[in-house]
């Protein structure tokens, strides 16, 4: 699995954590009420994936298999705590919006899944790239779902972009539909489930049209709970 293209295709499409592995559904469903929330959490998750992937890969020869899971948890928890403190310092408003979901990145089983399935068996550069590809694939799903829900829920896009980009994001808010009365379902949790279901269906349709066979969720992805 040192083929870079295969790693990228896996993370971004074929084995996408949000649409195929269905890992990390809890933050995926909870924070995607707007594009900016989705992007913020997606980038934080990507950073965590890269850091934990590199670290796990670097220590893979000195960690005994019996204690690998606690070691992975420690590594991931360190990365997440660091990112949380950084966000608290540099993007405090976004940190407040995302709230509990930043520390909860620890429990995103997609990260544990990659540490176990990929990083602990591959060299450091490949592990770093895999973390990046998986993170970007996850971020893409978060952003698309966020856009879907923000557009149908409140008729805007990039609302509150200043939370993520500071003064640069002030003018980014786009009122796509004027005098929109709002579609509360999209903003509430049911909208997240419906939206994700539609996105998965769309991906399956595209795959079927292209004649590609769907990839089964690998066995190691099971058993990490549905956090």
């Amino acid at each position, binding site marked *: 699995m040192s083929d870079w293209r295969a790693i990228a295709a896996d993370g971004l499409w074929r084995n996408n954590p949000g649409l195929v592995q269905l890992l990390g559904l809890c933050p995926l469903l909870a924070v995607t009420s707007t594009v900016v929330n989705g992007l913020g959490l997606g980038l934080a998750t990507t950073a965590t994936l890269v850091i934990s992937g590199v670290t796990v890969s670097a220590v893979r020869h000195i960690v005994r298999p019996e204690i690998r899971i606690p070691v992975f948890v420690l590594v991931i928890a360190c990365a997440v705590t660091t990112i949380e403190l950084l966000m608290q310092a540099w993007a405090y408003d976004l940190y407040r919006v995302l709230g509990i979901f930043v520390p909860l990145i620890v429990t995103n089983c997609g990260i544990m899944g990659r540490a176990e399935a990929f990083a602990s068996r591959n060299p450091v550069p490949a592990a770093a790239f895999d973390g990046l590809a998986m993170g970007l694939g996850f971020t893409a799903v978060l952003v698309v779902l966020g856009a879907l829900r923000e557009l149908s829920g409140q008729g805007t896009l990039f609302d509150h972009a200043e939370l993520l980009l500071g003064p640069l994001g002030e003018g980014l808010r786009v009122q796509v539909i004027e005098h929109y009365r709002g*579609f*509360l*379902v*999209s903003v*509430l949790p*049911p909208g997240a489930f*419906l939206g994700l279901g539609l996105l998965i*269906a769309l991906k399956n349709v595209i795959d079927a049209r292209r004649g590609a066979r769907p990839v089964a969720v690998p066995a190691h992805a099971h058993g990490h709970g549905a956090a």
Partner: protein
Amino acid sequence: MREFPVATSPHLPPRASVPALMYRVLAALAPGAALATWQFGWGVPLQLALACLLAVAAEAAMLALRRRPVGRALADGSVLVTAALLALALPPYAPWWLTAVAVLAAVVLAKHLYGGLGYNPFNPAMVGYVVVLVAFPRELGHWPAPAALAAGPDLATALSVVFGGSPLPDALTAATPLDHVRTGLSMNRTLAELRADPVMGRIAGTGWEWVALGYLAGGLWLVWKRVADWRIPLGFAAGLALPALLAWGVDPDAYPSPLFHLLSGGAMLGAFFIATDPVTASTTPRGRLLFGAGAGLVTFLVRGFGGYPDGVAFGVLLMNMAAPTLDQLTRPRVFGERR
């Protein structure tokens, strides 16, 4: 001497076809719909027509997209039943776009994305209703006053309210009996006081109780014709009325009577017409009793302690989810099989 027909097996006559069942359901809805029209005016037939038109169009479009024979599936009438149930559940003067959203959610999302008639795990009409209930709670609470309290708007006003976006005149609106009880109780009034208010009528709300009796009559006819299994409405009534009786017995000033529960809101429509949907309900005899009882119990809980005025739709949808498990757990014993 009596002649006996001679034929080879099977000797059981075939059950009625899908269109025959669906048109019987529509016929059974007629008395309730007529009484609702008498009580709430032009809005009821307007909503029925609008919902049916939109539903047929959406069904035809989805069938064409899915490359299924359009004519045959449309002729089975199932989409008309969905549309009629939805239209009767929505407030009669709801704006047209609200009905459109509900119909599209019902036909496209709940029916065809799951594979069409026979494959949908959730009752399409109730999915459509819950989508708009969650999205537009204010519009869904906007009911007209029954005929005994205010003469309904004429046809021109009704058309302009439904299609023109003008609001229903305030003088013509009234809280539904369920809403009235809910707000009254939250303001620390007792039910004995509330019952004297004009909207409350004799048992379950002026006008509303007549409409409920209309659905009850149609529903009993369906049961008599064996279109609907008696177990589901009976279970629903028991699941709703028994806890209501208990609560009412403990504190009749804070909890409405079982009869009020049965005849108000969507209870009768839900018990006889919505919970009995053969696709989404449980299919075993004991399963059907439990299915109905669960839906009734959820209705009672939502009405008494939940955030929405009525809970029939939630009860039906939650039990739709439970139906496969219920079927599995209540599978009838095959003769000779050991317990």
